[in-house]
């Protein structure tokens, strides 16, 4: 029996920045290996879990993606006194980093603090200004010599954060973006075992999404599926944010409508959720979705693509907060959708003309 919450905790507490996803892929592999027929790793860092469909004739090929990387910092320079200057790998808001505990992954993993000036020493004017990333530093509490023995330029820095349970099914931690989707994808694979599905499923943990959706593009080229499904997070509702830009937590996964999404896939997923009484919210988009869906849609001769998201508050911080029920429903919805896919449906996806 797959324990989704436990898996989410393990995934989020594992360090895996863009380009360094192997540990996260390892956790995914351990959790999902027994659920699928085959696991493959490619030469650039994607992991693919393959479940074959049943039935005669050519099987439709469905690819799922959930990116495995998280945003991190990186050691850019070791200053006099052993303080570290940092570079971004993905986009933190530098305002959320002040006073944050971090883990620096050198020859051993050590804890550091992103230092802040105490209010006693800062002027009122200073406190009105945000501190740019360039001026942040990490204090490891060690001599420069000791620091240099353990840490080198190019080492990764992740947030030090244990994932916690809030009220009900709400959970909070770092890297919920996008380990929430990795979890949903695993739940989907687990659900698929209970269903008859004609389609062969390629569930890919993709690399380097946070610096521009790299892995999904190369994996889509490799597998060239008939249908691509990206799973990612979207903004959760917070006060003062326009209703089209953020969705409610706990009211189901989010389906995107927009130019990057195949119209028939949108309709099919929406109608299925209605029929099966699975809660679903709709998000509208007018161009880029900033997810794996964007590059996949135009790989080779083009791939019909759809995007399912988990609403998430405080994106790109160390306290990303979500409702686990949204993850569970996303997994179930995806599995049931995949079970409906047959060759006729796939053929219909390139027919846009009436008569």
């Amino acid at each position, binding site marked *: 029996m797959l324990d989704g919450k436990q898996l989410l905790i393990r995934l989020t507490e594992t360090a895996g920045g863009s380009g360094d996803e192997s540990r996260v892929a390892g956790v995914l592999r351990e959790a999902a290996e027994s659920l699928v027929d085959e696991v493959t790793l490619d030469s650039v860092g994607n992991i693919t879990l393959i479940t074959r469909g049943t039935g005669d004739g050519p099987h439709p090929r469905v690819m799922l993606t959930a990116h495995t990387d998280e945003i991190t910092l990186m050691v850019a320079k070791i200053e006099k006194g052993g303080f570290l200057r940092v570079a971004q790998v993905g986009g933190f808001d530098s305002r959320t980093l002040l006073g944050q505990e971090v883990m620096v992954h050198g020859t051993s993993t050590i804890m550091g603090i992103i230092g802040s000036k105490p209010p006693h020493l800062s002027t009122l004017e200073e406190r009105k200004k945000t501190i740019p990333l360039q001026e942040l530093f990490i204090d490891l509490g060690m001599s420069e010599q000791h620091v240099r023995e353990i840490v080198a330029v190019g080492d990764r820095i992740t947030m030090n954060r244990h994932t916690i349970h809030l009220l009900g099914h709400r959970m909070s931690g770092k890297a919920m973006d996008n380990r929430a989707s990795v979890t949903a994808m695993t739940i989907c694979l687990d659900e698929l075992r209970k269903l008859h599905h004609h389609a062969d499923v390629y569930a890919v943990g993709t690399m380097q999404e946070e610096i521009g959706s790299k892995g999904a593009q190369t994996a889509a080229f490799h597998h060239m599926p008939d249908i691509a499904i990206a799973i990612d997070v979207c903004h959760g509702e917070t006060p003062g944010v*326009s*209703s*089209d830009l953020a969705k409610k937590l706990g009211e189901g996964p989010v389906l995107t*409508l*927009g*130019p*990057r999404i*195949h*119209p028939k896939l949108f309709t099919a997923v929406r109608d299925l959720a209605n029929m099966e009484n699975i809660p679903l919210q*709709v998000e*509208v988009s*007018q*161009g*880029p979705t900033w997810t794996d869906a964007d590059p996949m*849609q*135009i*790989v*080779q*001769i*083009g*791939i*019909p693509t759809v995007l399912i998201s988990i609403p998430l508050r405080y994106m790109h911080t160390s306290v990303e907060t979500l409702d686990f029920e949204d993850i569970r429903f996303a997994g179930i919805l995806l599995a049931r959708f995949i079970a409906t896919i047959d060759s006729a449906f796939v053929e219909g*996806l*390139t*027919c*846009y*003309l*009436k008569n």
Partner: protein
Amino acid sequence: MLLKKLTEAFGPSGFEDEIRQVIYEEIKSYGDSIYTDALGTLIVETNLEAKGPKLLVVAHMDEVGFMIVDINDYGLLRFRPLGGVDPRILVSKPVLVGPNRLYGVIGSKAVHLQEPEEREHPLQLQQLYIDIGAHSREEAEKYVTVGDLAVFATKYEEVGDRRAKSKSFDDRVGCAVLIETLKKKFNLPIVYAFTVQEETGLRGAGPVAYRVKPDLAIVIEGTVCFDVVETPSHGQSTIQGAGPALSVVDSKTIGHRTFREHILEVGAQEGIPVQLRRTIGGANDIGAIHLTGMGIVSAAISVPTRYIHAPSQMISLDDFFNTVRLLEAVLRSIEQGGFSI
């Protein structure tokens, strides 16, 4: 009237159903094979067994439009653009909304009700809304769903000295050039493609180029033209009435020199006026096509279009006819072996 039919059809980026069907009805008795791809691009194959270089000729059928993203308690619709629009041009323009093509107007607070300070600033997108005449959210929801699309309600009309105006010469004028051309016979393998989603990032053209793998590609566009009062020569890009414009360099492509020079030569031989596009700003489907596979020799020929991405765009009908002539002349020259890669 082809230009009228094409420019008044509805088809924001990613939602090209109506314009695609309009084009299909025009061309369905031509070509050897007509089909759509995964993104919805309409592809017409002609004479693929003929000898000579394989050509891909492209015009995008999508237009800049709007998506309804929220309905407020007054029954007013909040919207966001699909494609690049300057918000300053939006206020007080009629639009067509949703599958029923309802009229709406883009409104904002009346100027009388604005503080003097407010009047100094251009209106922001969040200060604008579409009013379809609904009394309440409930009434509006009967007609409109979040995610519905809207376009400017501008009619096609001929104006001035052989000019015409419409909402979408970018790039329905290119679609018209393709339709006129594919009705002619060429002893060349030519694939015509009416692409989707050019306005949201040159999305449709790459997959077509990957599928067709042409030796040569030509894009027909409606391009920037600002040959108006007080604009210096280097701010104009093109001159209306001076003939089709060839792209040299834009933000996504450094044009293929030899192919461009060939087209200029063909224009000169045939007595067709041709100009060079004199700006680096903007881009067209060539940006995606020329980098496909191992690279594709390409050119872009454009009809100068004033007030591009605005409610009333203007072209010269002479430029349109000369673009049709130029494209035919270029294809004939290739047919006769006048250009090799």
